[in-house]
């Protein structure tokens, strides 16, 4: 941001660099105040926040993957397909290794996570190859892959749910740690979010994919291997999606080819609301994480009003998305005007 020519103190610098994030915080605070005024005793309870913290990781993890793809200028529509396929395969694995008394051997849970992440990585690499080597536009490649993965999942299960899993896995993920306070789902989400933050902000991989998303041609002439970067990115997205599938497997103690089908579009909305440009090259993980919180707060908040039909969730969600984008447009517009005016003044 070169508009920072006039130093105005750290706070305004911070604001100028994180306009979008501040705006999301403002919307979240406004909603929290509204809930405090209308439904304080039913919303501000420990169990309510614990419930929300166990609910958002499943789609939050998928959204983190979609974010990476969108930074490169692509998209991943196959997250839910990968999540379900990984969850189904893991469910088969857990059933296979279960002890005769219904318990699980000690290695089962780490092995299950390793298996799911491997499945996610393989499917993600498949997506990445379609996008980079075969040069199918990401939206079509991942849509096709999504159908394919879901189809395989249906064939594997005959469309039924895989249930009657050994209860040990669901119990482990559904429990709370640190004095029965923090849901395990939240720990998984936080760990993945930190890894992605690190990759984007502290490694060359991050710098490269922002460059790739900004201008693929420039990236290629700068000596970057675009194809490898894309394969890596879709692989990471696949791993995130598979972890989301693992959380779903625990939350519903079963896996099925059509679980979470609403999450495909929801993830894209979250990522765009989080300030990631669909054209690529722009976006912060903090924005996406805030957008994930905001969605859950809105949905849970609305569920506190018996009279309000659930249709309004889509309506309010769409309204918030458009509101934030309109606010963005006006602030970018005014920032753009300031930028343009400055070089114009010294002209003859």
């Amino acid at each position, binding site marked *: 941001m070169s508009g920072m020519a006039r130093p105005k103190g750290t706070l305004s610098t911070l604001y100028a660099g994180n306009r979008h994030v501040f705006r999301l915080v403002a919307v979240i605070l406004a909603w929290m105040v509204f809930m405090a005024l209308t439904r304080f005793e039913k919303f501000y309870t420990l169990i309510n926040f614990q419930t*929300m913290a166990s609910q958002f990781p499943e789609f939050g993890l998928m959204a983190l993957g979609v974010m990476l793809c969108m930074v490169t200028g692509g998209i991943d529509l196959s997250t839910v397909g990968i999540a379900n396929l990984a969850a189904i395969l893991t469910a088969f694995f857990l059933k296979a290794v279960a002890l005769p008394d219904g318990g699980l051997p000690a290695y089962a849970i780490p092995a299950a996570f390793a298996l799911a992440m491997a499945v996610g990585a393989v499917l993600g690499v498949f997506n990445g190859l379609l996008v980079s080597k075969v040069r199918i536009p990401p939206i079509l490649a991942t849509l096709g892959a999504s159908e394919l993965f879901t189809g395989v999942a249906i064939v594997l299960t005959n469309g039924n749910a895989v249930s009657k899993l050994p209860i040990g896995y669901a119990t482990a993920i559904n429990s709370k740690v640190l004095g029965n306070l923090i849901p395990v789902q939240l720990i998984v989400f936080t760990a993945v979010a930190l890894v992605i933050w690190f990759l984007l902000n502290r490694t060359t991989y991050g710098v490269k994919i922002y460059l790739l998303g900004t201008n693929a041609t420039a990236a290629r002439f700068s000596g970057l291997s675009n194809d490898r970067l894309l394969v890596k990115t879709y692989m990471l997205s696949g791993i995130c999606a598979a972890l989301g599938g693992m959380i779903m497997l625990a*939350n519903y103690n*079963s896996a*099925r080819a*059509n679980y*979470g089908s609403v999450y495909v579009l929801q993830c894209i909305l979250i990522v765009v609301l989080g300030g990631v440009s669909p054209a690529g090259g722009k976006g912060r993980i903090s924005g996406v994480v805030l957008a994930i919180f905001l969605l859950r707060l809105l*949905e*849970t908040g609305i569920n*506190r009003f018996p009279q309000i039909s659930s*249709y309004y969730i889509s309506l309010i969600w769409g309204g918030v998305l458009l509101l934030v984008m309109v606010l963005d447009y006006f602030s970018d517009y005014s920032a753009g005007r300031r930028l343009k005016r400055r070089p114009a003044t010294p002209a003859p």
Partner: protein
Amino acid sequence: MRKLLALLLAAALTLSLGAALAQENWEIVVVPKDASNPWFVRMKVGVDEYAKETGLNLYQKGTPEIDATLQAQLVQDLIAQGVDAICVVPVNPESLEPVLKQAMDAGIVVIAHEGASLTNVNYDIEAFSNSGYGAFIMDNLAEAMGGEGLYTTMVAHVTNASHNEWADGGVARQKEAYPNMTLLEAEPRVESEDNGDVAYNKAKELFKKYPDLKGIMGTSSYDAPGIARAIEELGLQGKVFTSGTGMPAANKAILDSGIVKSLTLWDPALAGKAMAALAVKVLKGEEITAPVDLGVEGYTALTFKAGSDKVLEGQGWVVITKDNVDSFGF
């Protein structure tokens, strides 16, 4: 001493009044598969009506679309909110089990409908037993046929458990109550594949092949309407008959024209009321012993399904004729 007694009495009265007030403050939520499907819009009509009649804090809340994950999250939100009873029509029983267990652990009363396989519920209400519903369809068919003649049965697939139990129930009812009717032994059970066109073609074929055939009992909601088209096209109206499951609005034309005298169904509005009534009974701590009377039409003598202490079956079937076809709203 008298003063103390009076004081105690007053305290007891206040307490019981408080308890009575608390009863009225029970929060009971009905969670359907979704909010926009006409079937569940009809259920909401019943739930709202029951809330008005009884003054209960009772309401229906559904997700914007039919999705197992959304439904589970809605139920989790309701648990966190601390409602007293949850009545649910599960999208997918398996995915709801762990969530319903959380509800039961939190001391919330859980009543299900069309979820006979669920274990983490206080009770599950089914509108009827499969054989009872089959007998009811047979009664309707027999009435149209005048209690005599050759008939056969149609199911979606011979592998479909509930349809075949209905058909078996119908045949058993005929053997017991309508001695002048006979089952077409050559083809006692035909398949419609849950498809109106297949039902239509199958019926045309049957009527041509067996000129004596006087009636077909339908089970899937595509059967009777498909058979009715065949009857109309072959000009057999008034000579051959059908009855079976059917949705009201979609079949208004064939009921109005008299090709089909009656269709059978169960009313989601009554099922919604029955769930709420049972939730209140459980909250009050009443003992649930068969036959259970919920004070809702068709749910006045519920009995436990054989071998289960959770699944209750009613007589909640309704008959749809040209006179009441417009009253359902779906």
